[in-house]
């Protein structure tokens, strides 16, 4: 081919898809599968090498998938590969604990039997989710995954976005989606600024093997330094998410395994019998960062790139999957109407849908945390009474269960368990 212009166009065609997704974590692949299902071609650009995120052994990371998120995974065809490794969450017990003094007499108990939809959610290990996503993407002829590919530049024009990779290759899409985490380079390159708060707290995350059965019960203890959650994994194993003031957390994280366990044990008592560590330990500084806009020219942000949330109630991935479901529904609706799905007109609908939900969730999570991380005796009395009231009113309690299951608000179709 001696016409360079023609060669360039052909090259462009080869690298063209409807949607370019930057980020190969969990939300990016979920969106890729949802959009491929409605007939779109997708390229996922992942900075990590192949298999990097797929640990063979359990590495200690797990997710509390709300029922709504589980439905989405089912609709996009990955749940079957995950379900054998998923632990249904049948009950949630919330206790206003106080280290060394035992729990207060007031606590809330939420049982999935109060709603007809089923368990409130499922605990799934990170490795099984990633494996299922990668297998499903590999099998899908509409999805191309580029590994160890780093975006160095991006540009939007009237009909789409072009990204340039580190090796000089260019890719073209009608829409660029940033699913590249709380420090999203995609958002930065588009000039989208972020608003953030730092809690001065750090989450300690680990998994434990325990002697006694957990019975599918998730526990949330609220203690003055910060909350502690025990989330049931398959078998006699649970995931622990526990937050402390950052200096304390760092000191605890530096301890050896046995000393670490000595700190952990008294915080939730002995109801699970003897405990030992399973897998690695992680720390995550707790801060909140929200992009000032979820959309730009030919650009949409999802997951932590849009809103990095305090993982207090395990809502990070659930909120991200809600972005996925909403964006897939908005884009697919536009395609079927003949609209240009990457236009600001269409992206505005996604922004309108998700910004409000997110603002509400961010505010609630923030207030919840501030209220429960405080040892002020008046606040403590107030929340104990509050928990007593919520716990004794079935209607209110049912509301909380539905909230925990992710069934409230303007629920996208995939999260209602329906195809788009």
């Amino acid at each position, binding site marked *: 081919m001696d016409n360079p212009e023609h060669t360039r166009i052909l090259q462009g065609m080869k690298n063209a898809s409807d949607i370019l997704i930057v980020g190969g974590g969990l939300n990016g692949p979920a969106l890729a599968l949802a959009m491929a299902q409605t007939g779109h071609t997708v390229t996922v650009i992942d900075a990590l090498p192949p298999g990097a995120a797929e640990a063979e052994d359990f590495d200690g990371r797990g997710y509390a998938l709300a029922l709504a998120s589980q439905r989405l995974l089912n609709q996009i065809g990955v749940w079957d590969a995950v379900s054998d490794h998923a632990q249904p969450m049948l009950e949630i017990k919330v206790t206003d604990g106080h280290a060394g003094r035992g729990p207060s007499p007031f606590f809330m108990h939420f049982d999935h039997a109060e709603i007809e939809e089923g368990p409130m959610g499922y605990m799934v290990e990170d490795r099984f989710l990633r494996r299922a996503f990668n297998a499903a993407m590999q099998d899908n002829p509409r999805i191309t995954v580029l590994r160890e590919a780093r975006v160095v530049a991006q540009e939007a024009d009237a009909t789409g976005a072009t990204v340039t990779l580190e090796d000089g290759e260019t890719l073209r899409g009608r829409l660029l989606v940033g699913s590249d985490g709380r420090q999203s380079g995609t958002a930065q390159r588009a000039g989208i600024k972020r608003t953030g708060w730092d809690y001065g707290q750090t989450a300690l995350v680990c998994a434990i093997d325990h002697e006694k059965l957990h019975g599918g019960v998730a526990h949330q203890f609220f203690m003055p330094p910060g909350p502690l959650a025990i989330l049931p994994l398959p078998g006699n194993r649970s995931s622990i998410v526990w937050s402390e003031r950052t200096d304390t957390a760092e000191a605890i994280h530096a301890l050896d395994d046995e000393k670490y366990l000595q700190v952990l044990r008294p915080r939730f008592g002995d109801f699970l019998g003897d405990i030992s560590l399973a897998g690695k330990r992680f720390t995550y500084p707790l801060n909140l960062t929200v992009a000032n806009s979820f959309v730009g020219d030919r650009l949409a942000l999802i997951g932590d790139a849009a809103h990095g949330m305090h993982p207090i109630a395990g809502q990070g991935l659930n909120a991200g999957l809600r972005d996925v479901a909403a964006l897939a529904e908005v884009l697919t609706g536009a395609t079927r*109407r003949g609209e*240009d799905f990457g236009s600001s007109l269409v992206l505005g*609908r996604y922004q309108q849908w998700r910004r409000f939900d997110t603002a509400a969730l961010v505010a609630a999570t923030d207030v919840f945390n501030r209220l429960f991380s405080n040892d002020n005796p008046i606040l403590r009395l107030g929340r104990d009474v509050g928990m007593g009231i919520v716990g004794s009113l079935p209607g209110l309690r049912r509301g909380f269960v539905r909230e925990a299951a992710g069934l409230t608000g303007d629920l996208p179709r995939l999260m209602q368990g329906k195809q788009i």
Partner: protein
Amino acid sequence: MQAPQSTVDPSEIAKFEAMAAEWWDPEGKFKPLHMLNPCRLDYITAQIAGEFDRNLKSSDPFAGLRILDIGCGGGLLSEPMARLGATVVGADAAERNLPVARIHAEQSGLNIDYRHTTAEALAAAGEQFDVVLNMEVVEHVADPLSYLTATRQLLKPGGLEICSTINRNPKSFAVAIIGAEVVMRWLPRGTHEWSKFITPDELYDLLQQAGLTPVDRKGFVFNPISWSWSISDRDLSVNYVTASTKPL
């Protein structure tokens, strides 16, 4: 899809590009049309899919259909029809709209035949279409019956016409004229003359007199709480739409 050659005078292009950008700015002067458009498209696409047995979930569902968009403006309906695979003619009596529409289609990589003409002239030339989109035009014409008769002549037998307009009652006066033109300033003052508005029953009569068979009518309802439009089976009190077929 091959973009059409632009026939616009180069010195005018910058001006028309600015106008095209304005037509297509969701927050701009045509904001009310952009807000209403998804609703109009939902109705139009569902009616066409039903009439011609097309699946909107497939790619290019309207392939092989020839569609006329009367009063095409910047191409807010023509472009989606082209994107769904139809062969589209966009007609507008306002000459200045056409280069605007052409430039935007070219930018979007769509092939649309935009013409400065009227329904009557197209009918006189013997043009034939599977679908005629006659949206928010009938309330602006001097003689609705002769206009609708021309639109019927443009249809192939078994063809489909979608016609939308504004009802005539105190509420539509309050909403469409006082609300949209005076209070919200969504539309320029004098865009609509209330006396030219047509009730759904009157429109059904006119369509029948023009030789069409009305088969469906729905309301487009604006919800000021959610700030969005939706399709209603019952509320045809202000904006509404009809579907009619031309007998075989």
